[in-house]
């Protein structure tokens, strides 16, 4: 289980020359994701999704609030330990082009402190599950976008984490590749893993997520199951929900 408690991240941005303004990219967000749950993070560009996910993954230190993770034997303390239980992937977590998928998996496994025999067994499993046989030994810079994305996912899997954090994992993929990734997330959920992921594809989120957290300008707009959200707003689908909720916010902000 992973819980965000009142997370705040403050950045300074340069507005004009020599004039700096502080602003909260993430402004007091709290939510949690249980075992066996897929939580979808939705929001317009610049809402603070990536920053939020980076803080959850331990890549960024929050300015305020805290992230608490319970995995395996209990509460996780310390950044390095946290990273052991998280599989994080985003558009910014690219792979070394001069290595093959198999080599990458071996390297990551070793740094996670796994035994060589375990790494080999796990690698074979992953390659089978993600259907990577054909390209597992090719250099990554010679693979197609979908193949690279599958390799990226395999990289998150090697240490068998309990929590997955994916930032737009299906971005720019064809239907076949993205459905492979969706199937994978569902399968992990069945195993009792926690998945938090962000996306701009509403249909995908509606199909996949147990709960939707919408954020706008660093704040949570809603946090509920897709069905409840549809009922509350009287919408046919998630796309409508999104437009109603987010547009409301934008309008009220414009009126102020």
């Amino acid at each position: 289980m992973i819980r965000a408690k009142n997370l705040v991240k403050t950045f300074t941005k340069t507005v004009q020359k020599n004039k700096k303004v502080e602003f909260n990219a993430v402004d007091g967000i709290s939510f949690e994701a249980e075992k066996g749950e897929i939580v979808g993070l939705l929001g317009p560009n610049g809402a603070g999704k990536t920053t939020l996910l980076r803080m959850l993954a331990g890549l960024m230190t929050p300015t305020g609030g805290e992230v608490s993770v319970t995995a395996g034997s209990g509460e996780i303390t310390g950044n390095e330990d946290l990273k052991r239980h998280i599989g994080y992937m985003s558009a910014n977590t690219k792979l070394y082009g001069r290595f093959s998928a198999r080599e990458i998996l071996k390297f990551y496994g070793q740094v996670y402190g796994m035994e060589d025999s375990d790494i080999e067994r796990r690698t074979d499993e992953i390659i089978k599950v993600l259907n990577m046989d054909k390209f597992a030994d090719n250099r990554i810079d010679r693979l197609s976008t979908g193949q690279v994305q599958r390799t990226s996912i395999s990289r998150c899997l090697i240490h068998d984490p309990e929590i997955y954090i994916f930032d737009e994992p299906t971005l720019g993929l064809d239907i076949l590749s993205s459905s492979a990734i969706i199937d994978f997330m569902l399968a992990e959920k069945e195993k009792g893993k926690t998945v938090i992921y962000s996306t701009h594809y509403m249909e995908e989120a509606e199909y996949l997520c147990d709960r939707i957290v919408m954020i706008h300008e660093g704040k949570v707009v809603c946090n509920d199951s897709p069905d409840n959200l549809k009922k509350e707003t009287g919408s046919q689908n998630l796309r409508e929900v999104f437009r109603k909720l987010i547009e409301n916010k934008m309008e009220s902000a414009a009126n102020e």
Partner: protein
Amino acid sequence: MNSKLKIFKTLFLKELRDVLRDKKAIMMMVLVPVIVYPLIMMVSLMVSSMLANDKDTTYDIAVYNESTGFDVGNLENALKENAVETDEEDGSKEQLYNVICTVSDKKISEDQCKSMISDKDLDAYLEIADNGEKVEVKAFYMESVNESSEAMDKVRRAVDNLSDGIVEENVEKAGLDKDSFLYPISFEKKGLSSSEQIAGQILGMILPMMIVLSILISVMHPSIDLTAGEKERGTLETLLMLPVSGKYIVMAKTLTAALCGVVTAILNILSMSVVFGVLFEQNKAAGLIDGINIDFSSFISAMLLTFPVIIVTALFMSAIFMCFTCFAKSYKEANSYMSPVMMVLMFLAYGSMIPTVELNQYVAVVPVLNVSILLRDALNFKLDYTMLLLVLCSMVLYSVLSILFLSKAYNSENLLFGDGKNAISLFEKRSNIKKGMSVTIGDACFIYPFVILVYLLFGTLIQAKYELAGLPISQFLILVGIPLAFFIYAKKDIKKVYSFNNCKPLSLVGGVITGIGAFFVAAILGDIIMKVTGITIGEGLSDAFKEFFSHNAVMATLCIALTPAIAEEMLFRGVLLSALKDKVKPVYTVLIVSVLFGLFHMDLLKFFTTGFIGAIFGLIVYYGGSIFPSMFAHFTVNFISVILAKYVSEQTANMLTNPIFGIIGLVLVIVGLFIVKNSNKEQSF
């Protein structure tokens, strides 16, 4: 700890593999030194030898003679004689160039002459006229035309020869002895340098710069690629998701880039040696350099020394480069950050070519310049071991500081997610430091070079000013004070760091016995090394000792025996031993600390003797679990030296070199260590 080492190894191997699969890096590393440099040298040598032996050059010289007494034929003969070189030994003749001398019936105007020289119809034009008793020769040529100015030189020589001939004739006519009259003083020069020294001097000008530059070039690419390149390719965030601290990532990166530099430098030296060797043998076979016989084995020590120097230089460069490139978001941006750094480093590397720059203690702390000049000195056979230590220490210190800075940078979000270049503080905020930790290897890597650097720079000044009293001042201030200040800042557990553990009085006695034994063994050891290798204690050092020992016994005991027993023990068997003991096997711990202790004494002979004694002291702390017995042992060793120097004649002291004392000493060491170990059952390393 072992698992951390394994993770570090994995990280390092990954970076190395990444670089080795990069064709650009391989080009820089291997191709340039192995193929390009020798090729450039071969071509340039070929071109210069072609230019030197150009026998087809013909100099056209036109002469207009108004003089009545001057015979142009004589001038022409002189010119042609100079063009032929006669070998002194076998009398064979060689035509170096040709001269065509034409007599013109008309004066040639300056403008006409100019255009003829430009058109290569003429190289020089002479106007000869009488001026009273003298003959006046006016020679016209163009300085900007190569052949013309060369022709001018030949003419000048020929005219001088003619003039000399006339003078000699005149002197003889006057009935004087021409030899003693014209050349009253004879002068002959004899060079005393051996051909090795001459070769060393020439190599010393070029080689250091070449080595430094080759390291620079080969380190540059991986430094950029592993930092800015990684950011550009977007793999950095992936790497940082690993559960390892930034410092391991940074160290793996610097070591990889440094390794590239080391490999290139070695390849470079090898290929250079081959090229030089081939050229040398060729020239020898062609008889161009008769009589010069260079014994290349005399450069072996210089080459061996080059190795650690290359390592520290490569480390320094990769760390420094990365400090700049890690701020860049792309390879291109990194390149522009690097240009000013490269310029400065290249400028410093040229230092070895300036003969007036000498390696003193201030030059020795200027990075790159110090290395360049150190290598030159080594090739010139005038290496100073004090300076060697100073150079190595300062380079290591700068590298450690850079790595420290880098690991801060790699833990900083600002740098990695790149919205600002907010200040990265080198040292952890005091409020963030955990209390009561012991000293780490990282701390020691910083403390040892820094302390030694300060001690060499300022300690020697203090000792020169205050003489004997300078010893305790410098030792306590620098060896004890600096680390202590750091430990207090870092809230370290002082008792743990210095092994200030209780011990039984018996173990102190054990320390004293071990000390006596160690002194005897070290005396024999020193004597054997002296006899076998011919190494003696450096002159400066033995003078300083005589000076120190000349004071009264109490002062000498306090300053020479007590001070080091406390200060040096606290640094070496305290700080350094504690830093290593948890992470390194005891054998290596004791060995490393005693090597560092030996180096500290800055003398080749003392390195071995004090290194040996240091190892014994290390064992005392290992078995005794406390620093106090080793302080007693250290005091005993130094006290015996004071007593011997003051009250015992040299003859009696020389008796110590009798092997029997060595055996007694060894027994005493074993007994002493046994006592120390047995009186300490509960505490151990």
